[in-house]
């Protein structure tokens, strides 16, 4: 890929299009060859240096998520069952990389709106809400209660987006919850996946043991880890998507409410 395209791509992903354009224009004035490549590399470094701390938190969370999957494969070699496993891991890596880039870009945009702390708080609340739903379901709560609690996570996302919309704008409200939900997804995966690998997928409930006998898995621990890690990966996809939909709805409601309010 050409050096100027790399600079443009990184700048655009990080929400620094203006500086990306400035650097690209300078690149056109730099003699071709090693000098230009070094200049481009320095520009990419300069774009990354100024990233908010939260972007680096996203990167660390991604490394932790990949580390959990790697640790699971090492500890439970039976998880690898052929091409399907590697395709799933490849998809997971693509999702994680997309989340890191998304988190970095949103951090830069939200830093300008001074809403980074709000995004962190919203992220922790969304993760907490989903974790509470899982706890209630695993404790054998009535299905109606578990189902009713499913609105908790999206509800928090919607309220957070409405709050940011009232403070700044619709776009910022969605961006704020976008970042929050990416962080929440990572946090939930870290907690769930880490716990799964650390405790070999325990506790084993009767349903899991029953399904294991027909699964073809080499042992119960491998089957439990496979099942639980799959759920954690689904959660990593599901939480940000559902939260974003709820955020868009919350932001829309807040925008409508703002328009209807008579101006002072």
């Amino acid at each position, binding site marked *: 890929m050409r050096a100027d395209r790399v600079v443009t791509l990184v700048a655009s992903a990080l929400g620094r299009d203006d500086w990306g354009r400035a650097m690209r224009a300078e690149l056109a004035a730099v003699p071709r060859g090693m000098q230009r490549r070094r*200049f481009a590399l320095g*520009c990419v470094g300069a774009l990354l240096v100024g990233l908010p701390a939260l972007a680096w938190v996203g990167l660390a969370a991604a490394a932790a998520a990949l580390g959990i999957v790697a640790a699971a494969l090492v500890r439970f070699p039976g998880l690898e069952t052929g091409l399907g496993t590697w395709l799933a891991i490849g998809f997971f890596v693509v999702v994680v990389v997309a989340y890191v880039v998304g988190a970095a870009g949103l951090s830069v945009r939200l830093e300008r709106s001074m809403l980074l702390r709000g995004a962190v708080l919203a992220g922790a609340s969304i993760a907490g809400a989903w974790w509470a739903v899982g706890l209630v379901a695993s404790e054998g709560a009535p299905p109606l209660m578990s189902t009713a609690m499913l609105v908790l996570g999206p509800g928090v996302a919607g309220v957070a987006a409405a709050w940011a919309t009232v403070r700044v704008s619709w776009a910022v409200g969605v961006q704020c919850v976008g970042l929050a939900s990416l962080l929440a997804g990572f946090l939930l995966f870290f907690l769930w996946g880490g716990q799964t690998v650390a405790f070999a997928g325990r506790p084993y409930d009767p349903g899991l043991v029953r399904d294991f006998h027909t699964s073809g898995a080499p042992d119960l621990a491998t089957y439990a880890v496979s099942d639980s890690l799959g759920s954690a990966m689904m959660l990593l996809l599901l939480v940000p998507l559902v939260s974003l939909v709820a955020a868009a709805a919350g932001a829309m409601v807040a925008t409508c409410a703002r328009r209807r309010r008579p101006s002072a």
Partner: protein
Amino acid sequence: MARSRSHSPQTLRVLRALASEPGAWRHGYDLVVSLDLKSGSLYPILIRLCDRGLLESRWEAAESGRPPRHVYRLTAAGAAEAEAAPLVRPAATGPRRRAQVRTT
């Protein structure tokens, strides 16, 4: 009296280079060459100085077929900051400045 924030030796070199030609617009690559800085060091400085209102930038039309270039010069606050900044010690300045390059 308010004290200016302390700057890194590299930032001071950029401030002084820009202050040496008050009012003149400079290109990023020219600063890289004349100050013998890497782009990875210069751009974070330019971004920071712009964010702090010490530097102003504008787009300058370039030769045909080339994109407009970003040019920079000190604001009044930036010029005052450069004036108030301590002299850069030779040890911190790195290799000798190369000859001033073309001004396109």
